[in-house]
């Protein structure tokens, strides 16, 4: 599969192993393991409350985690060296409403130490030129979101962790943003994009399907569709939930029979092939 070729030379961009996270006494993630190959757009899909944001916060290093390891670009998540190489787009547009678009970006640029020319570049890429001198608080929700995204593009980060970047956008803008994401990936960036809109999944190179803090699937879009025998990601997701089998073997294979992996493990195969540490332990997804 493509992942081997991509991942082998430099290793995956993000490797999560046996991650446990509690938030407000609830166990949000319980032994999650996954890997995100470099240079791809990986969609993180799942219903609200499935732990997507918690996983993303953990990856960018702002989440207190109970146990487990996360490596981003070969370093522990949240290490100082990663803070200019990994960009985080929070679900709620995190910009200063009482600053203009340009002032927002100028401040974040200075914090990152990115070149001044970056501001015009990201304004152009996010199509904010016409509102660049307006206060962020006076913009529409979609425009504010794009200011937040523009800030995430400053300094050409190698990994972009984007939490529901297209939520609340009209279809035209949504298409434009996905075009932008593909351009970024073509330039070599790795994008982890969460969404609870299943039809966005088709635009990703790979999918991570989550439910209740567990990984239901880790595969290409085609792989997930073929495995579930549907032509629609939403249906595929529902079927995966229906099966209720934590290990997600096809119907005819016994869930814990390792010998059946080779032909059946479209789903969740990636973890095994790119994360040597997880080995049989990748069943920790349960």
């Amino acid at each position, binding site marked *: 599969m493509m992942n081997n070729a991509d991942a082998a030379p430099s290793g995956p961009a993000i490797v999560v192993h046996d991650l446990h996270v509690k938030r407000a006494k609830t166990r949000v993630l319980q032994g999650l393991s996954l890997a995100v190959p470099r240079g791809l757009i990986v969609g993180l899909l799942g219903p609200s409350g499935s732990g997507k944001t918690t996983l993303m916060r953990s990856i960018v290093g702002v989440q207190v985690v109970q146990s487990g390891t996360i490596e981003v670009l070969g370093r522990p998540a949240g290490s100082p060296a990663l803070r200019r190489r990994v960009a*985080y787009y929070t679900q709620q547009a995190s910009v200063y409403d009482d600053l203009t678009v340009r002032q927002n970006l100028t401040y*974040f640029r200075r*914090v990152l130490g990115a070149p001044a020319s970056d501001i015009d570049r990201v304004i152009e890429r996010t199509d904010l030129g016409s509102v660049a001198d307006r206060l962020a608080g006076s913009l529409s929700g979609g425009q504010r979101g794009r200011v937040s995204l523009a800030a995430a593009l400053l300094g050409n980060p190698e990994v972009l962790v984007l939490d529901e970047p297209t939520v609340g956008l009209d279809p035209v803008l949504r298409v434009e943003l996905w075009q932008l994401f593909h351009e970024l990936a073509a330039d070599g960036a790795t994008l982890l994009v969460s969404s609870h809109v299943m039809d966005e999944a088709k635009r990703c190179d790979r999918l991570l399907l989550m439910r209740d803090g567990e990984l239901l699937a880790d595969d290409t879009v085609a792989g997930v569709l073929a495995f579930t025998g549907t032509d629609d990601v939403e249906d595929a997701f529902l079927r995966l939930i229906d099966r209720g089998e934590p290990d997600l073997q096809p119907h005819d294979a016994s869930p814990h029979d390792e010998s059946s992996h080779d032909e059946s493990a479209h789903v969740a195969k990636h973890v095994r092939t790119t994360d040597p540490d997880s080995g049989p332990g990748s069943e920790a997804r349960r």
Partner: protein
Amino acid sequence: MTLVRTFSTAGRVLTQIRHDERTIGLLLVVPSLLIGLVAWIFVDTDVFQTIGPAMIALFPFIVMFLVTSIATLRERRSGTLERLFSMPLGKGDFILGYALAFGFLAIFQTAIAVSFAVFVCGLEIEGSIWLLFAVTVADALLGTALGLLASAFARTEFQVVQFMPLLVFPQVLLCGIFIPRDQLPEVLEAISDWLPLSYAIDALTAVANDSEDAAWIWARILAIGAWIVGSIVVGSITLRRRTP
């Protein structure tokens, strides 16, 4: 921590406030209005001569505490703090940036408050008005520093508002406004000897009556300065990049 990031943060905070004219107005005028009110209440007595210096210390201190703690809390709620902490911004850059920005505002606020008390309300200052100004600025900076400390500890608006009675009210009660500090019960007097607002009020009263020399006043300012530095350092340490 770097100078560029600290000053960028201070500049950004000031730019934000510049866009909010009403806040600037309130910030600059409210302490003066309150001092004016106190002067008016005691217009037919000589009480204002006694407590006026304390009022100059009290109102900027409380206003700066509130404004600073809410401003940083707003940053937490808007998600921008989380974004900054996923970026190479040091915790010290953040706290010190806010301290510089609000400290800058505090200079203007206290200049107006001192001028108003002296020239409009007729507060008689026997000592140096510059020393009075220096003590008041230190005191407003103290409000800012304690506000930053409170917001570093607090996780929600509710908690910040509770920190005000916790950190501010005991200092107000024990600072000698209600009863001279040497008449307090022994234990409370010992406590009040350590509270920074006590230094501010002692110093301002001494300047107003010209009862101590400049070295004595500067020693009080230095003590307030130590509290400011201590609060900022503890605030920076307390602030967490990772939150639950």
